[in-house]
């Protein structure tokens, strides 16, 4: 793996050109991700504007403690990721592997807590189309809130999963000495992706769990 990645690919003139291309590439990719999630936020905004009361009810039925724990986990994982990138840039192999592994661990914990949360929703009959039952007013609109809740957190969780898998591979490569202060682009790019996943959660968390909860 290391031997195929570190040299300069034939289409590039030098390492700087290759690094600039990779960096621009990941930023464009992140832009597509923003638009991808943008659809969900647009759908959320429109639907909430039309049914503010139902969204307030739905928001209060979500599990705030678990979501807050998850927020803490994900924010911390961004710190460990940033430290991992810094360690890779400084050429500290053991620190790189350590910080990246810690990031993977925090990501896995996020997914585990998410699973707990989904389980609790299932037990409380909050899963749309599967077992949703809510007896108050505007039951349909509350169900619509939970539909958005599952789609948004589900697609976000899929991104966390992809991040965890990618960081695991990068950590393994780091342990095989694949990176150096001259070449650590994969660590850098994975870090940028991970931060984006984190930033998206920073919008998801208040919109679904906090807004109109008082």
């Amino acid at each position, binding site marked *: 793996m290391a031997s195929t990645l570190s040299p300069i690919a034939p289409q590039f003139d030098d390492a700087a050109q290759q690094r600039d291309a990779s960096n621009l590439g990941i930023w464009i990719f992140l832009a597509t991700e923003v638009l991808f999630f*943008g659809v969900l936020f647009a759908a959320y905004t429109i*639907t909430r504007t039309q049914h503010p009361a139902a969204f307030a009810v739905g928001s209060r039925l979500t599990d705030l403690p678990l979501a807050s724990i998850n927020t803490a986990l994900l924010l911390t994982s961004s710190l460990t990721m940033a430290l991992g990138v810094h360690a890779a840039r400084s050429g500290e192999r053991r620190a790189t592997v350590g910080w990246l592994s810690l990031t993977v661990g925090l990501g896995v914990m996020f997914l585990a807590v998410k699973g707990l949360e989904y389980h609790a929703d299932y037990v409380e009959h909050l899963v749309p189309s599967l077992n949703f039952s809510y007896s108050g007013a*505007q039951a349909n609109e509350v169900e619509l809130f939970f539909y958005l809740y599952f789609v948004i957190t589900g697609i976000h969780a899929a991104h966390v999963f992809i991040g965890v898998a990618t960081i695991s591979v990068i950590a393994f490569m780091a342990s095989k000495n694949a990176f150096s202060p001259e070449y650590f682009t994969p660590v850098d790019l994975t870090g940028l992706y991970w931060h984006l996943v984190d930033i998206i959660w920073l919008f998801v968390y208040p919109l679904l769990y906090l807004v109109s909860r008082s």
Partner: protein
Amino acid sequence: MSSITVAEHENYLTTDFRLWSWLTTLDHKRIAVLYTLSITLLFFVGGAAAALIRLNLLTPYSELVSIETYNKLFTTHGVIMVWFFLIPSIPTTLGNFLVPLMIGARDLAFPRLNLLSWYLYVIGAICAIESLMAGGVDTGWTFYTPFSTEFSNTHVFAAVTGVFIAGFSSILTGLNFIVTIHEMRAPGLTWFRLPLFIWAMYATSLILVLATPVLAMTLVLVAVEHIFGIGVFDPALGGDPLLFQHLFWFYSHPAVYIMIVPAMGVASEIIGCFARNRIFGYRFMAYAMLAIAAFGFVVWGHHMFVSGQSAYAGTVFSLLTFLVSVPSAVKVFNWTATLYKGRISFEAPMLYALGFVGLFTVGGLTGLFLASLGLDVQLHDTYFVVAHFHYIMVGGAVMAFFGGIHFWWPKITGRMYSDAWARFAAIVTFVGFNLTFFPQFIVGYLGMPRRYPEYPPEFQLWNVLSSMGAVILALGYVLPLFYLFRSLRYGPAAPANPWNAKGLEWQTSSPPLPENFLRTPVVAEEPYSYSADRPSDG
């Protein structure tokens, strides 16, 4: 490969003949060939559906197919032609082949992503064709909710999955082009020395990258709603079906510019070459394409004038739509001005390019009719709309695609085709196209709605004319298959620069070396410096 002596040096076609080497190739030129073969196949699938539609419309009473089948035919035609032919057409074939060559690079920035994008396209196409085999989809290519969700009993999921996957193929192509054009230009090749084709690819890539994700997520929401029976587009639950239309057109209007901007790039290359003139107002041509790409994102509401959006939104969208005509007109005037005092010759690519300019102009001007709020109430969902967008997408984009294939065929294959046959095909296509679609303006203006298998008998004359035109048009599309493939075996070997054209791609051999250039070229002149070749201007 043929009886004629192969060129003395190895080229990208002769490095390895095994199928496996093609399926695992990272060479942008080979991937372009793979794409060309795939989209040609899908073009004829979509074309077959169109042929059946036109055949059915020969008589007013839908005597050929049932109403259900007719719905599936026009859906198939739209889905295949939009997502599996027009969107990928010029970028993935000519774009893949030419972007590195025109900027003096050895390949695109990310060759593996490029190959992945082809595989995604193929998988998406298989899903779409699977949905046809399983029984078809009857929603129209627009997948409007609730046709595509609770009221659908057809194979929407497979079709939507196919379009979703093909969308990622678009995104990867766009990303690859943007990075390549930014980072890998040859020494001396500044932004304003770039060929307009490269500017076109750049503008198109911006749309591909920024609009496609919106379609992808919207289709995810449709699929979820289709399967689980709940979603934000369902009014029974308090959802909003109009939201789907907003999201869909946020992608699908810019998608029209994904089709036409590359065509503008092709036309600029061809017209400059065969008028032996530098492109008039080069910088404005580049800015105009960027402007079209940018405006394209803020006009989607003109598809929804009669859908129930507010009158104020309609007014704003109408005004913004009129604005698009400014950069579009800049392009048409500048192509015309490029011809002025040129030494024009009428080889086949030039005929296609001139045909493109004329048909694009008609398509664009009729777009202004539709952008007018009041007039659109009369014309919405009639054959006038069908004719308008076919003038842009078929008359514009497909003419330019064929022009580009003819222009760069010697470079791609190393063979010359019969110019006489090619000119004949270009004229047949032009005549057939106009005969097919011009009557649709009239019958649409008279009130014939689109997507209906039956019509009042007084419209039959126009429909018969249109169907006759379709036969001629089909001939125009099939002819190149014969003489182009024939040229592969019997055509004379092409020189490096058969048209005496400017541009780096003509400085390397035909077909190019696997690594494109022996030495990285250095650029020291403006693009389209054709007038420098001429002894004097009269």
